[in-house]
Each structure stands twice: as structure tokens, then as C-alpha cells.
């Protein structure tokens, strides 16, 4: 497997409490990888650590074979962008002004704003369908548009790797699909490697080429959704009884939880 991001004996902790323990993980290049796991299993923590936002207790994250902690942060920012969970834009900041911030790692004292910066910003706005809205303040947009604006900012960063922490949280179903379709296109058309945390297992199965299931500070299973997602895995990772069937539209695994609810018996003719 071709991979450009790896973790080696990565241990992450908040204080004394370890969240991830001695993890060796390789992220496949040019694919969409999704981290799944129950609340508090450390999937967001792992993503933040890969993006060098959290310092490991021990071990390291390697980007193209080099320890990310030792690389200049601007150099990392030209290869990898991260969208944290529910970011907030200051009042009155326009979409254009937000997206421009993605060019930060390419600027310096001498090189303030270039033609290339302008082009990348335009391209990011076009890819996210925000050209019409570019002068609107971010705080006046709908949830889905706002999330697209943030994604546009990370796209303007023009990186090979795109990391997103629950990009669909707080969005209604229409906007969830809209965001995930956008990311899927970016992977298909521009061959960007995408790593994200998703809550919805069914959407994860539909969009991910590679799933990493986390449990007890370790990777409990990883691989193609259709090869690994089954009843016993869901039981183990989420402590939930379910049936796994096949999505009638996409053919990807579809998980239907057991539990309570109204039960409608079809009347026989």
C-alpha cells in the first residue's frame, strides 16, 4: 500500500490518561480514509495529532517519511490542511476574506500576495460553488454554505492531504450529502488524499475507500468498508447490536441497529 502519512508507536494523552496507545498506522495515498469509533475513543485526538495540533506523548507522525514535529510548520501547511470541528468565523468576515487566509503558508515578508494566490482562491471558490457568495459575511450563511466556505479555505491551502474533523456535524441531511459529495469529487478529480472523522457509519461506508475503526486506544480493524464492516465489528466498536445489509443504491454496507421503535406489520393481500 502506497502511503505518505504514517504513525509510529504513537501514544497520545491528556494529562496522565492515555487516549491512543502505541499506534502504528499507515494512511493510503490518494484515497478517502475515515476514522470511526464510539464517542471519546480518540478519533478526533488522533486526527489532531496527525495534523500536528496535538503533541504526542511519545512516538511520531511521519509525513513522506519525515517526522512532522521536526518539519517547519509552514512547510507542513503547504502539504496538509486541517479543518477542525465547528470552527467560528469572526463577525462580518466575508467568504473571500476567509478563503484568502488559506494562502497564509505561501506568504512572507517579501511575498505578500501573488497572482498564484489569487488563482488558488478563485479555484477554491469555484470548487465549492461559492463564487456568487464570495462577498457575503460568513456569519450570515446557512450551515452548509458556511462549512463549504471553511472547506474552500482549506482548499486554497492547495495541499495534497486534507484532514477534516466531523465536517458534517450540525448539518441537515441534504447538506451532509452536499459536503461529502464535494469531498468525494475532490478525491476523484484532483486525487487528493482525504482523512476525516465521521459519526455516521453508513455515510462512512458509502464514501470511504478505507475505514479505520478505533477502540480501546488501538485500531480494532481497518480496510475496505465492504470487507470489514459486519455485525461483529459494529458490536465490538459501538457496543450495539445491528444487522448489516447492502445499501440498495450504492451496494456499500448498510447498518441497521436493533433496539426499540415502532414496528409495522405489512398487511398481507
Amino acid at each position: 500500500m502506497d502511503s505518505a502519512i504514517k504513525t509510529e508507536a504513537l501514544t497520545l494523552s491528556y494529562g496522565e490518561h492515555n487516549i491512543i496507545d502505541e499506534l502504528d498506522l499507515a494512511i493510503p495515498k490518494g484515497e478517502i480514509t475515515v476514522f470511526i469509533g464510539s464517542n471519546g475513543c480518540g478519533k478526533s485526538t488522533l486526527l489532531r495529532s496527525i495534523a500536528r495540533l496535538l503533541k504526542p506523548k511519545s512516538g511520531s507522525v511521519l509525513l513522506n517519511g519525515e517526522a512532522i514535529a521536526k518539519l517547519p510548520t509552514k512547510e507542513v501547511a503547504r502539504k496538509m490542511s486541517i479543518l477542525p470541528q465547528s470552527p467560528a468565523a469572526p463577525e462580518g468576515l466575508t467568504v473571500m476574506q476567509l478563503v484568502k487566509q488559506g494562502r497564509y503558508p505561501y506568504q512572507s515578508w517579501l511575498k505578500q500576495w501573488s497572482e498564484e494566490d489569487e488563482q488558488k482562491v478563485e479555484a477554491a471558490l469555484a470548487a465549492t460553488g461559492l463564487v456568487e457568495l464570495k462577498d457575503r459575511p460568513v456569519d450570515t450563511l446557512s450551515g452548509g454554505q458556511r462549512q463549504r466556505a471553511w472547506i474552500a479555505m482549506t482548499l486554497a491551502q492547495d495541499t495534497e492531504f486534507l484532514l477534516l474533523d466531523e465536517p458534517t456535524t450540525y448539518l441537515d441531511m441534504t447538506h451532509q450529502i452536499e459536503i461529502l459529495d464535494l469531498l468525494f469529487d475532490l478525491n476523484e478529480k484532483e486525487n487528493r488524499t482525504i482523512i476525516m472523522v465521521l459519526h455516521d457509519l453508513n455515510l462512512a461506508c458509502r464514501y470511504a475507500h478505507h475505514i479505520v475503526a478505533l477502540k480501546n486506544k488501538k485500531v480494532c480493524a481497518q480496510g475496505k468498508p465492504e470487507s470489514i464492516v459486519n455485525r461483529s465489528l459494529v458490536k465490538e466498536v459501538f457496543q450495539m447490536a445491528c444487522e448489516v445489509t447492502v445499501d440498495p443504491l450504492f451496494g456499500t454496507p448498510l447498518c441497521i441497529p436493533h433496539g426499540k421503535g415502532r414496528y409495522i406489520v405489512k398487511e398481507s393481500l
Partner: protein
Amino acid sequence: MLLDKKTAAIFTGLLFLLIFTFLLSAGTGQLYISPLDVAKAILGFGSKLHTTVITSFRLPRIMVAMMVGMALAVAGGILQGIIRNPLASPDIIGLTSGASFAVVSFLALFSTENNALTVSISWLPIAAFAGAAITAFLVYFLAWKNGVSPVRLVLIGIGISALMQAGTTTMMILGPIYRASQANIWITGSVNGSKWTDASIVTPLVLVLMGIAFMLVRHLNVQELGEDIARGVGSKVQKQRLLLLLIATALTGSAVAFAGGIGFVGLMAPHIARRLVGSAFGALLPVAALIGAVLVIIADLAGRTLFDPLEIPAGVFTASIGAPYFIYLLYKTRNS
């Protein structure tokens, strides 16, 4: 990054407003001089009387008022960016009262029996700066808890501010009477008695500091998006936050050293600027600077003319507009 047309128009409009208030203030007083004659006098074509009144008496204080307004506005803008809160300002997080405390302590501690100072008065700005700096770090340090939350910073700032004011009062009681009345000027904030020597120190100081601040807007822009985003795009957040805090502190220190605790300008000016040109600091800081300058010049003009021959410190006027403005902001942000 080119400024858009709207920003350019607002900036130009405010620049003219500043020039107008400048000329108006220079012409108003016991001897009224029309703005045109003021301009003539400044450019060296005016009558001898006009020239003397304007250049010797009125200009230095207006220059100081303008610089102080700019310094406080830019300091406020920077603080609102790094703290990510529109309620942040040099007064609210205690910088102004820290600088005032240092200035009053300086006057009280280095005075002799004969009201002479034992050290040069030119150390005063440095004392003010040190006071602002120590307060800034104290507040930042105490507010730190896995990062600095805006609410913590404001609350601790208000606490430290109260402590500094108590210290200031103590120093005024302990120091010589003559110094106490001089100290009172600092606390309320006034540019009365500013001379060319003051103007010639504060002007280059504030201009250089503002220049540095304008060069750091890129960093300020990403800081305002939050720590994770800023680090994600490759900003050395801690280093730059420190640098920006230093600049804001130095600007506040310079303002307080020459005009005392002129309140609320650092809160209002950047906030009004944000309303006019949005949140990008490349536009916000220069516009805030102009608004700050206009505010302080008008406050000073009102202070010396409205109740003539009584002179009211400019700080009284900025506070009487600023305090209700602050309450309005608090009311508006109560749900967030």
C-alpha cells in the same frame, strides 16, 4: 492584497473627517480662527497671532490627542483579534489601569520634598509601558487554563484592573499632594498641558508601533480564526500572539504615558471600524486608527470648550460615550 472600493472610500472619508476635526479643534478656543485660516497658519501663511496661538498652544495637544486616539484604537483592534472577542480592549483587560498605576507610582516614589523629581521625567513613558506590560502578562498568565478563554480573560482583566486602581489610590495618598493632583490628570485622561516635547516623542513612537502592527496583520487575521485554524495554516501562534500582545501593550503604554487613562476608545474605535469595513485587519486597523484619532480630538475639544473656562478632561467624554456603548455591546452579545 488590494483594498476594495468600499474600504478605500470609507478610509478617504474618515481621513477628511480627521483633517476637518483637526482644523476645527485647532481653530476653536478663546480666540476663534476659521478652518481656512488654521490651515494657512499651519502651512506658514497665517497672521502672526494666529500662528502663535495655533502652533504654540493648540497644535501640540491636538497632535498628542490624535496619536493617543490612534494608539488606543489600534491596541484595541489587536487585542480583539488575539482574544477573539469584541469586548476586549486595553481598559477592560486592565492594561490602562496597570499603566496608570505605574505612572502614579513613578510620580509618588521619585518625588523629593520640594516636588522635584529625582529622575528624569523622560522615564515616565517607560514606566507606563512597564506597567502595561506587567499587567498584560499577569492577566494572560492568570487567565490561562488550557488556552485563554475570552470570558476568563475579561473577568480576570476586570479583577486586575480593580486591584491596580486600588494601588493607584494608595500611591496617591502616600505620595506628595502636588503629585497627587498631577496624578489625577493621568487617571482621568487628558491632553491638557501637552507640549511640543510630548508631541515629538509620542508621534514617532506611535507611528512606528502602528507601522509594525500593520505589518503583522496577516498573523492577526489567522489568529482571529482560532488557535487550531491558525496552527493548521502554519502560523506560529504562541510566538505571534506574544509579539502582537507586546505591540498592543506598547501602544497602550505610550498612550497612557502622554494622556493617561482615556477610556473606551480602544473598545469603540475598532468596533465601529468592524461595522464599517468588516473583520479583515488590513482594513480594520487603519480605519480604527482614524476613528480613534477623531474620537479623542473631539473629546478634547469638547472638554476645553463646552464648559469654558472650566476644563473637563477628555477622558470624561470618551467614558460618557464609551460606557453606554460597552453596556450596549454586553447586551447584544448576552446570548453568545
